[in-house]
């Protein structure tokens, strides 16, 4: 399938290439929830001393994916609702090292070795980076992939950028790919790279060209073309329950290398901290549980702000109850909350507002980063059938039509018009002049359909 639709939102506060180190905090607040995981089974007791890489909790609903202690410290279980707190930290203590594989044979397919590798990836915290390319859900570590899809193109403004993660770590990235190769008998590995021509991009291409098993896929730099679903469909990879396509990001491949080549846990994170409300947007080297306040504190230009976990298109709001960086975070985007009301905004030429439509004077300017806040920028209206959502949708479905069916509670037609193909990129909601939360409606509709299907199955079984 051809890549279609898509649009780049030029949000101000793009993180620089630099990766900043943060001083170790006094305490870590490890959230027991992230987007996909709920670490409900706690493996430690209050007051227990743990070392770096020790398992603190796991998610029994998702193949026991663990939450690891990023540093040595003392566990506090009841200090903060929804978190495990780690105090008396000793970042200098280093992590325990397991048996690992530094041989050059690392890429050879061998079911026996792969058994050991799978266990290592799970126990040392790399497995959380693996997802089913088509559904985004966690994978069974004992499964066999239909193919492996690695995306280094992260275009949601602003999450940690692939090129930043790769800088200076190309060897590790290549080794990670070699390890991944050992899971495959004959299935391909695809590595999606941005099609831009920079020195660094050619360096990466050059490096990977030496690996015959890697299929490089050039992707235009347009959101959401780097998304695993967009890529999987583009490459014609079919979804499958038995042999799902494994999807990884740059960070995931680096985690694989760390675990398998050095035998140490993948506890380090490089996340982006940016957005229009941040004065010095950059990347930060940190760990899970790092207090959110430390990450953004001192850099917020204006208050009140909304902190988004991930990018503005799909990320969730970091509520006041969440104190630390969650296990799956790729970045924090900070936006000023909308409180002021623009005067006669609808009739201004719009020199400073960037729009998907061509109705703003800024149309004649080259793309520029815009300092937008969380305003809806208009009032909710019935759909006026402008057709913009159809143009922008990368999934090739008709959001306005699906919206009409959902509005009419016509579930059957909602299914027929393929709401299931929506991969929740958020562009339709972003550009809709009637300010309809299409993406959210589709997420809810999919849930409802899923629930009905399950109910139906149950009936059939009885």
């Amino acid at each position, binding site marked *: 399938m051809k890549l279609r639709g898509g649009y780049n939102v030029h949000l101000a506060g793009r993180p620089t290439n630099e990766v900043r180190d943060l001083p170790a905090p006094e305490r870590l607040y490890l959230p027991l929830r992230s987007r996909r995981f709920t670490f409900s089974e706690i493996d430690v007791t209050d007051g227990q001393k743990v070392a770096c890489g020790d398992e603190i909790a796991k998610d029994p609903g998702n193949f026991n994916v663990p939450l690891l202690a990023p540093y040595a410290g003392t566990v506090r279980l009841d200090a903060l609702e929804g978190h495990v707190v780690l105090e008396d930290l000793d970042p200098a203590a280093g992590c325990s090292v397991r048996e690992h594989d530094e041989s050059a044979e690392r890429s050879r397919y061998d079911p026996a070795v792969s058994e050991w590798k799978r266990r290592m990836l799970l126990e040392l915290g790399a497995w959380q980076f693996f997802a089913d390319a088509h559904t985004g859900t966690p994978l069974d570590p004992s499964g066999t992939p239909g193919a492996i899809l690695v995306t280094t193109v992260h275009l949601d403004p602003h999450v940690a950028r692939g090129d930043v993660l790769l800088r200076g770590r190309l060897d590790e990235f290549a080794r990670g790919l070699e390890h991944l190769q050992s899971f495959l008998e004959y299935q391909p590995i695809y590595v999606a790279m941005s099609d831009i021509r920079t020195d660094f991009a050619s360096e990466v291409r050059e490096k990977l060209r030496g690996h015959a098993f890697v299929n490089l896929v050039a992707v235009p730099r347009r959101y959401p073309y780097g998304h695993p679903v967009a890529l999987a469909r583009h490459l014609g990879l079919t979804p499958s329950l038995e042999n799902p396509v494994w999807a990884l990001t740059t960070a995931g491949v680096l985690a694989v290398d760390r675990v398998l080549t050095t035998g140490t846990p993948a506890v380090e994170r490089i996340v982006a901290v940016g957005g229009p409300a941040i004065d010095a947007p950059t990347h930060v080297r940190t760990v899970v549980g790092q207090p959110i306040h430390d990450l953004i504190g001192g850099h917020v230009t204006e208050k009140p702000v909304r902190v988004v976990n991930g990018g503005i298109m799909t*990320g969730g709001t970091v509520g006041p109850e969440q104190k630390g960086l969650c296990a799956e975070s790729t970045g924090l985007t900070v936006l000023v909350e909308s409180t002021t*009301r623009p005067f006669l905004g609808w009739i201004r030429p719009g020199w400073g507002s960037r729009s998907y439509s*061509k109705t*703003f004077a800024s149309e004649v300017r080259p793309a520029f980063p815009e300092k937008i806040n969380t305003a809806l*920028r*208009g*009032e909710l209206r019935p759909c006026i059938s402008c057709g913009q959502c159809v143009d922008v949708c990368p999934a090739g479905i*008709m959001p306005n039509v699906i919206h009409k069916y959902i509005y009419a509670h016509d579930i059957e037609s909602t299914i027929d018009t393929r709401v299931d193909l929506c991969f929740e990129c*958020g562009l339709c909601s972003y550009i809709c002049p009637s300010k309809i939360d299409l993406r959210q409606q589709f997420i809810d509709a999919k849930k409802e359909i899923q629930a009905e299907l399950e109910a139906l199955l149950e009936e059939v079984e009885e």
Partner: protein
Amino acid sequence: MRLVANLLDRARPLFDEGGRLNFFKPVFDAGDAFFFSPATATAVAPHARDPLDVKRYMTTVIIALVPATLASIYFFGLRMIPVFIVSYAAGGAVEVLFATVRKEEVNEGFLVTGLIFPLVLPPALPLWMVAVGCAFGVLIGKELFGGTGRNLFNAALVGRVFLGLAYPKAMSGAWVEPGTGLLGRATELSVDAVASATPLALAKAGEFTATTDLFFGSVLGSAGETSALAIILGGVFLVGVGVASWRTTVSFLGSFAVLSLVLHGGDVGTVGWHMLAGGVLFGAFFMATDPVTSPMTSAGKWIYGIVIGVATALIRNLTGYVEGVTFAILLGNIFAPVLDETFIAASVRRLREQKA
């Protein structure tokens, strides 16, 4: 700006729950939102949004109508200004009434309807007829369907058809001789209605008005429809910024031209003349392209334009009517949902093949 904000703030308690004027809250809200966009924040991701909203969308149409509006004042006099005001007042009153009763917000759709309506009427029509027609159009054409976004027919055209049926004499006898010279009639307050024939009526009798007059607009006709130049100026802008669908405009004009060519035995000059005369251009750029009443699907828009173009050519050439655009577009409006259903069904069939 401060002043307006203060005034609004002072008036607000009157309209709030328990205030004396609470019943008129939608009116207040509309006025309030007219000056200051609401500060409403996004509730779910995406956390920021595009600056385009329905108000601006409609404003863009109004900007595109400015040349035709100015042309109407130039050719037919300052009397057009009270006509616009009356049309807005009547359409606005109905919209506000319904918003109040339904407890919904006042919708921006009438901003366009209120301006388009007088532009498709004979310029010397009595003001009360303008008011009645606009109110009827907005009421029957829009509100009864549930308001802007849910209406089946173009409200302005519904109003025009109503006036044509209810007051056929006035509708065919309220033309104005166009002004000429530097200021045209733009200095004249009152104008004389004349009952002479429009270019299209004359053409039925075999008498063709000069093409240059049609192009610049110094002919008898509906207030905003005479100047091809002004319509093209605004229309190209509207299509260029993507608010009007080029598919509709191109397929309407294209099919009209092709069929006319056949009907006129390949006489290019006559076809060109017909494209400029009457409401074809205005209809193709401003009426048929109304997103709400045209199909949603791209393929649907092509067929929709063709239906209108063909119908216009047929009505003009093969019936007793001199003009066919109004009926053709209303016919297209009827077809729009059918076309959508067909093409949505086709794309559903195509999508069914796709695994995920």
